[in-house]
């Protein structure tokens, strides 16, 4: 506590909010056959967990909000119930 700056400052760091992926009830799964690489999912993702390069999803922090699936024009992303997954 003694090392805190006097002003309430913070810098963004990976995982600062904990493993938020555990909040997820449904997970987005991308079908590479349908994906056109338009990157709308990458733009829309509020958590920044979709990689620009290969559209891989970091499930440690994906909260499962479903925005990517909703916005995908090619319908390449499906929200699958966590309990049903694998």
């Amino acid at each position, binding site marked *: *506590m003694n090392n*805190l*700056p*006097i*002003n*309430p*400052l*913070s*810098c*963004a760091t990976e995982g600062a909010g904990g493993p938020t992926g555990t909040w997820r009830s449904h997970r987005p799964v991308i079908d590479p056959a349908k994906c056109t690489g338009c990157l709308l999912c990458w733009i829309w993702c509020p958590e920044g967990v979709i990689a620009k390069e290969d559209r891989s999803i970091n499930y440690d922090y994906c909260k499962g909000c479903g925005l990517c699936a909703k916005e995908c024009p090619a319908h390449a992303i499906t929200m699958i119930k966590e309990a049903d997954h694998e």
Partner: protein
Amino acid sequence: MSKRMDTGNSACALAVKAAKVDFIAAYPITPQTSISEKLADYAAAGELSGVYLPVESEHSVMSAVAAASAAGSRTFTATSSQGLLYMHEILHYASGGRLPIVMANVNRAVCAPWCLYADHQDSVSQRDTGWLQFHCASHQEIYDTIFLAYKVAEKVKIPAMINYDGFLLSHSMLSFETLEQDLVDQFLTPYRPDWKLHPQWGGTFGNVAAAAEYSAYRNTLAEDTLKAAAVIEEEARNYQKLTGRWHGGMIDVQGPEDADVFLMSMGSMAAEMELAAEALQAMGIKADNLKVRVYRPFPAEALRQALPAHAKLLVFDRNLAYGHEGGALLMEARSALYNRDETVKIAGISLGIGGIDLPASLLTEKALALLEGLK
């Protein structure tokens, strides 16, 4: 240094200009408006190098000033009454952010009913927002307290509110002396914060905090507010050494050394109270005027030291503490002196609400009645 005859709001605006403020945001409200008008004139004429931002409300005023302060600017604003109340949310933000904003609050009664005249309900209602609160009793004190407030606020990293009574001081003409710019610059060096918001830094400010961190920030603010009392005393002495001007430290007592009756008040009432103390002295009562110069932090230690055993403390509040006898000063004086010395007797009254005139004759009469009640 030049002597001039002018209003309290002019004294305030002149000092703000001399303090080389970087950023001002303001929204008009009576009786503060002429401060922001004068500052806008200075900015338009190029006499003030800082940015003057007109915004759409007092909530936006304090938001803009807090942001500019976080970006490393020396900032100023002025308000009154409903305007101060509208800022309330961001007052907490400014103190929690440890942003040394200085604001003039020209004291005015609060609605309802609508009233334009002076009392301290507006600022007393902001007691627990974590701001330092100064009160001024003259134009000279307004002018000098602007520099002191910046010095202290920037040192302790807590915002400061300078209060003075609407119309009684803001619009009345009194003589006061300005200060040579090089003396102001000697006392008040440019603001150099050890941290500021900057796009290249990439961090954020006032983000969510866990309970342990949140309470650490807030407890530190509470401790530092108490510690500010010593800094105020020290810097008031430094200002006196440099300029010869003295308006008191946390409080001001200047009466007879053997005084045993103390008339405690703040704002313009404290100037009139000097005459009441003299009237009581003429009646053979050893009375002294006790001017509260700083309301936050409360001058508890200064009060404990000022009062001898068997003293009688008469407290005059220009505010109402609803649900409690008298006003805020009475409550706090009792609290500060509880267990200090059971021979000290305290009585108080709230008066002058909504700008009711408080001539020395009335204050003397009320003081005699309070003394009678203590017998």
